[in-house]
């Protein structure tokens, strides 16, 4: 029972190491995919909205502590992303949403939400234009993350691992 709660955090450290050391090599025009978000969306869909919300908070807090960002910023954005991903859970829907291209679309949506919240709170200005943030800073990284998440659909051991 407890292993179910600890294992995602163990996996987080490995995925985050890959994120900061290997992923910069596959940068395209300064844009990199967010592997942590893919992991979060998977857990939200498989284990429910409440689990996803709390896991998003945990992942976000760890990212803030390790990376030097404003503490609480990633926690906020990942919490909301985990909550949104949880809408696609359900006994009848979760297998479909995790094993088909629906997963990439859900990752795209959650990534856009995550990036908008993060960018909005980090550059808060009365003149901030949400549409500008959406098109210029949220869409490209989210598309790249969604494309990378397609690999996850074809990863054969994900059920056994997770």
């Amino acid at each position, binding site marked *: 029972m407890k292993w179910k709660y600890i294992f995602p955090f163990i996996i987080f450290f490995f995925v985050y190491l890959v994120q900061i050391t290997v992923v910069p090599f596959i940068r395209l025009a300064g844009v990199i995919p967010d592997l942590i978000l893919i992991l979060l969306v998977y857990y939200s869909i498989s284990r429910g909205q409440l689990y996803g919300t709390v896991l998003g908070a945990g992942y976000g807090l760890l990212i803030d502590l390790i990376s030097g960002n404003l503490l609480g910023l990633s926690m*906020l954005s990942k919490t909301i992303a985990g909550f949104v991903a949880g809408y696609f859970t359900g006994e009848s829907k979760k297998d479909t949403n995790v094993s088909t291209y629906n997963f990439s679309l859900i990752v795209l949506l959650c990534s856009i939400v995550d990036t908008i919240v993060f960018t909005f709170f980090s550059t808060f200005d009365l003149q901030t234009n949400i549409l500008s943030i959406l098109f210029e800073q949220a869409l490209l990284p989210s598309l790249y993350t969604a494309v990378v998440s397609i690999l996850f659909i074809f990863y054969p051991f994900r059920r056994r691992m997770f």
Partner: protein
Amino acid sequence: MFRFFSKVWSNFREYIVLVIVVLLSLIILSQNQNLQVQKVRAIAFGSFASVSSIISDLFSTTDLKRENRELRETNAKLMLMLSKLRKYGITNDELRNLVQFKDTTAFPLIPASIVSKSLSFVQNSITLNAGSKDSVLAGMPVLNDEGLIGIIQSTAEEFSIAKTLHNVDLKLAVMDERSRINGILKWTGEELIMMNIPSTYDIEAGDRIVTSDISSIVAFPIPVGIVEEFKPDASGVFSYIKIKPFVDLATIDNLFILAVVKSKQVEDLELNFYRQ
């Protein structure tokens, strides 16, 4: 009453938890300047950085060949520049001796390399493999042979985190090297701009921007970038100046930390002057 709360919890628990966690995040966001919070962050990133430095060393070997070629080319150019500068240095020494100037050109540089980079467009920061045991302090500038990269934000024993020029929280006093006009440099999330410059001031595209003498963070001029675009903003009173940094933040790996923090004595003196 208990049944009511139990019913509310079972129907809306996801929303209740969301609200609680969001409030918690906002509270934590507001506590970022707290000393205890900063200590916890220093311990956390120091611990993780020691592991990520091992992995990043493995991957950085693939870039060594390209980097060596670039360094050989830079060395050749520097050698030519050096012989020219030697000649100027001899003349300079003679003139200094004539007016008895104090020599202030010996700056201590701490070499470091990047262990990890943050993922964010707007809050870009880098983790370096030099920390308090190497005499690194918060507030020290980070630079390379091209120019300023950022400012040290916090330190652990063996690692430190620096905010780069692409971080919205970093605002620096800078000046136009030619016309000596001062302004504030900031990253908007999309571009690097110099703010609050009246439209009538003498700044042209191509001007070099360096850190200002009056900066409370950087003690002396370090190259920052070049003016790319200069045009009046919507009000027509102030100008919008876009700066292209000399350093390509996406490709930097090895750099130096300038082991100088602006004198607290000077700062206190200046602040006391303005308080009178």
